[in-house]
């Protein structure tokens, strides 16, 4: 019993040490560099590191040099076996408002080791609520929208089935 206890203690300590010393900012910068190769640039005004999290403030996202959105706050949280990305106040650039209808107030993207090939998404926006998944095995994103009057502005982008309005895209 003592041996099991010791092994568990070592695992927990190692897990904590890995999280504690994880170079979160450098990992983020590496991700930034990889995205820039795809034409996506992320610029943030400030970046802060916690034991389990990384906080970005006033984040501008550029696609092919075109400013697409500004996000007030992005909080990346990880326990390794569970990770989440919390994005607050996504403001679409004025020049793109004719392209992208509606606004997004909050997006939560989460991943758990329990279902390693699925990423869960929850969105709150001017169109109401939406939730969905990213299926990493079939490379499909599906978002299910709550039917309401608010949804009218984006209905032309959606499809409908027995479960209601949804958006689906493969990648």
């Amino acid at each position: 019993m003592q041996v099991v206890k010791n092994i568990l203690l070592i695992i927990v300590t190692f897990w904590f040490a890995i999280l504690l010393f994880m170079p979160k900012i450098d990992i983020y910068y590496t991700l930034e560099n990889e995205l820039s190769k795809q034409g996506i640039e992320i610029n943030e005004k400030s970046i802060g590191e916690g034991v389990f999290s990384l906080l970005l403030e006033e984040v501008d996202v550029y696609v092919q040099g075109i400013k697409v959105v500004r996000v007030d706050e992005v909080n990346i949280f990880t326990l390794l076996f569970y990770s989440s990305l919390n994005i607050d106040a996504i403001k679409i650039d004025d020049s793109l408002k004719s392209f992208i209808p509606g606004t997004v107030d909050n997006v939560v993207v989460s991943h758990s080791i329990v279902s390693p090939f699925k990423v869960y998404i929850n969105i709150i926006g001017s169109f109401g609520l939406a939730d969905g998944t990213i299926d990493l095995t079939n490379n499909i994103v599906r978002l299910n929208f709550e039917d309401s009057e608010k949804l009218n502005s984006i209905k032309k982008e959606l499809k409908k089935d027995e479960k209601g309005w949804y958006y689906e895209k493969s990648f």
Partner: protein
Amino acid sequence: MKKDGIMKSPFKLEFFRNFIVILIIFILAKLIWVVVDTLWLSSYGVEHKEETSGKGLYYRVKLSTNEVPPPPPPKAKPKKVVKIAGSIRDIKLKAIYSSEETTVVTIEYKRKTKILGLGDVVNGFTLTGGGNSYAIFVKDFKNYRVDLDESKKSKKIYDSIKFSDHKQNSIEKKTISPSVNGEIVDAGDHKIIDKSLIDYYTKDIESIYKNIGIRDLKKDNKINGFMITFVRRGTPFAKLGLKRGDILKAINGHQLNSYKAAFDAYKNASNMSNVTLVIERKKVEMELEYEVN
């Protein structure tokens, strides 16, 4: 304190051992990350830089010809505008182009279509000016306002006047998108675009895609212009003089060599008063000039 003759140390060996184990684990974790960081991770992010073309402000200068311009007709100071009165009813306004310098109208009078410039007289009424959707005539020191023919408006038909050197020569009527207002006038060496058209298309991107197809043209993985894949007949885009296969190379001196350059042109379109479009047609580079009014 003695037990079995051995002195017990006040320092707990087990605690010390655990501390060493934890320390080793921490050092190991740190070492792993140092190796990973050194080998694979980047210490610098990407800073977005705004592309600047280094070009100055764009001006289009039209040098005057040797021709003496006709004296401007006296602009009647509006005293009193009488809407549709007397025999002015016989004049139906079909189309109008009006700017600070000139006004050209297409009217229907006694079932005949006529094109009038400032100072021209029809049925005793002299054309003296106009606005976006009306013309002002003067007769016996009275002003008469004639609005665009409502019946034509309801049929969503817009007239396009073609003229050169202040003399008009042809009229063509095309049915276009119901919500599109404004017209494109051919002024010989350049075309005049109604600003309302630009405002409409900058607000509704989908209506652009319905009428014109544009795709990027890459050379050595770099954008080398944008090719027109189709232009719908009768649309303002066709009237601009664009044809299938044309390659858009530059706009107002700015090379269209990135999505951003193209998007900036689209974004600033409503602020442009003059547009010079450099296109490549059948391997020949040419300029198309437009004035926005």
